[in-house]
């Protein structure tokens, strides 16, 4: 595959994505995505899970474009609440709140919003270009790998998602194990034996992934919010002046380098499964802080524009990076990516190395729609901030009643049996307790989705080696992957420690992000600890 071919394929993708109908779908996706990004506790993963029933009626390209729009939109929306309310809408925007809210309090909210939006656009576009040119090469490499290597890659995905998302390695792995266990329920695909079904015909087909995801994200979240409804409202810091004057020359001069650095930190971090976008934002913030000089350095902690520009660029770049393993290997590393994988499965599209060859029109239309969506988001976000902030005035009972109706409809539509609704509620209660006690939800969803694929690949490789487990590490590629895994782990533990020190510093800072008051946190923990609790829904 030459890069010229890829360029033509991308252009063909544009001819699809630019059709008026698909433009409308993309617009709808980014609007919904921004709205859910703004609202704390409701993230793109929950939204994609709730909207999964649209796969029954829409054709694949349209549905995937909608979901990609939601995914990108969520990244933009989160920054608005971080800056104006000090309450991050989603986990990738936590770092933005550090400097962004200080800027808003100092009357520089408009500049913070502008640098976040433009930075997200710059990073999103550059990262999408990188995605367009990197992904086909990874895919070309991926088609050559066999089941043994695939098993190795999935072990990497399991361990990084399980251990690196969330505050505690054990909790992450427990959540992952729970997901893998639920994936086992139903008929064994090779021997047709029933597993963990208790002889019930309702469990024989297994528990649908969407059911579990909707239950954990929507029902669990609604119960959690219901359990701590009455916290006092928060004031929005008003933004003054027309949006054309928001980014001054001086701001632009200080922003463009952090934008680019954030992009090149975010994209690789998103690509390797190292915990998704929030690690990237933290890395970007730390490096901006170190690189700042003189007067600007003193501003850190008091509202430095670099501390908004870098992390916001990094989280959008990471969002594009996450699509590389998803589209080329079929391995999701965040909850939203996992839900997009489910959408592919709903259409019987085989995800994995063959995707780029067997469904190249769809993949390139998706990538082209990301360029379009980014542009739409920039245009939407700058002038419409006032409207997005209004969304926060919706009374929560109305909001969550709507979400629960959608959740139950979605659950019922899976098989049109009331049993599914009961499973939804049971898993939802489980989700509430996981949320309450700080167990991340993303590893469970990823485990649930990858579990069956992992199992079949593992058994295939063991069948080839006639049951000899040593074969799993004998292939040179697999061995390399395991070594890289060890390196990633050592690095990430180091990183985690740095991050913890950093958060301790943030906690010591009297005006740490006000996450406790949002709907997203449990009380009784320090803000820094509760920040880490939040990365369940992304």
């Amino acid at each position: 595959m030459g890069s010229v071919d890829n360029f033509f394929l991308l252009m063909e993708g544009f001819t699809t994505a630019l059709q008026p109908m698909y433009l409308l779908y993309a617009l709808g996706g980014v609007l919904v995505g921004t709205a859910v990004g703004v609202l704390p506790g409701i993230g793109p993963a929950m939204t994609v899970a709730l909207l999964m029933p649209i796969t029954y009626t829409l054709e694949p390209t349209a549905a995937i474009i909608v979901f990609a729009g939601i995914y990108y939109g969520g990244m933009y929306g989160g920054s608005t609440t971080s800056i104006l309310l000090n309450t991050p809408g989603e986990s990738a925007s936590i770092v933005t709140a550090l400097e962004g809210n200080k800027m808003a309090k100092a009357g520089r909210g408009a500049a913070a919003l502008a640098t976040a939006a433009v930075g997200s656009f710059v990073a999103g576009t550059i990262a999408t270009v990188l995605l367009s040119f990197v992904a086909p090469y990874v895919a070309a490499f991926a088609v050559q790998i066999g089941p043994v290597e695939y098993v190795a890659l999935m072990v990497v995905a399991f361990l990084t998602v399980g251990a690196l998302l969330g505050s505690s390695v054990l909790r992450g792995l427990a959540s992952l194990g729970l997901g893998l266990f639920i994936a086992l329920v139903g008929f064994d695909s090779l021997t047709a034996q029933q597993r963990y079904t208790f002889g019930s015909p309702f469990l024989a087909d297994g528990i649908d992934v969407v059911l579990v995801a909707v239950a954990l994200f929507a029902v669990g979240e609604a119960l959690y919010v219901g359990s701590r409804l009455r916290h006092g409202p928060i004031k929005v810091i008003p933004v003054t002046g027309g949006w054309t004057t928001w980014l001054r020359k001086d701001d632009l001069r200080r922003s463009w380098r952090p934008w680019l650095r954030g992009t090149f930190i975010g994209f690789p971090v998103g690509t390797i499964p190292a915990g998704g976008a929030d690690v990237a934002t933290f890395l970007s913030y730390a490096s901006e802080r170190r690189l700042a000089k003189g007067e600007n350095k003193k501003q850190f902690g008091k509202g430095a524009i670099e501390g908004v520009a870098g992390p916001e660029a990094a989280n959008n770049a990471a969002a594009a990076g996450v699509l590389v393993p998803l589209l080329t290997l079929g391995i999701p590393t965040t909850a939203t990516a996992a839900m997009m994988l489910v959408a592919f499965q709903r259409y019987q599209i085989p995800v994995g190395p063959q995707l780029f060859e067997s469904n190249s029109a769809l993949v390139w239309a998706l990538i082209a729609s990301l360029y379009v969506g980014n542009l739409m988001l920039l245009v939407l976000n700058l002038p419409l901030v006032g409207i997005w902030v209004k969304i926060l005035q919706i009374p929560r009972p109305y909001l969550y009643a709507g979400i629960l109706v959608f959740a139950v409809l979605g659950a019922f539509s899976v098989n049109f049996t009331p049993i599914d609704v009961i499973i939804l509620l049971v898993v939802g209660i489980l989700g509430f307790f996981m949320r309450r006690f700080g167990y991340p939800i993303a590893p469970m969803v990823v485990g649930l989705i990858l579990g069956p694929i992992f199992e079949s690949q593992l058994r295939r490789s063991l069948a080839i080696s006639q049951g000899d487990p040593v074969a799993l590490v004998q292939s040179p590629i697999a061995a390399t992957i395991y070594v890289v895994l060890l390196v990633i782990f050592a690095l990430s533990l180091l990183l985690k420690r740095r991050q913890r020190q950093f958060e301790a510093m943030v906690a010591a800072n009297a005006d740490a992000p006000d996450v406790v008051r949002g709907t997203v946190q449990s009380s009784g923990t320090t803000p820094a600890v509760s920040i880490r609790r939040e990365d369940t829904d992304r």
Partner: protein
Amino acid sequence: MSTVVVGYVPNALGGAAVLQAAEEARHRGADLVVVNTTRADRLVDPAYADSADVSELEALLARTGVGYSIRHSISEATAAEEVVDVAEEVGAELIVIGLRHRTPVGKLILGSTAQTILLTARCNVLAVKLP
């Protein structure tokens, strides 16, 4: 001692309502009770006064020279119910509220605080318009 109850929101209309209520209270030789509550069921409630708004309100009331108290809290009841309840509790002889234009759709979905107060209050209600 008779009492006048006023529903307050931190904006120009709320300020006008409080001033008018203070005027009425002085005429009647009455005390003033200012009510501002939130149900805290939304993340952002622009009708709920923060501490800066409250101190501004206190300064405003101090200038008028009438005796006053402020009911400022989070409550289960809606703002309308809270105003009417307080009026009954203190045996108010007048309720003062600010009145603004609402679209029919807005009233249909969210209801109208002013309308609820007008219809359920046992005493007279004075609706203040934005000057």
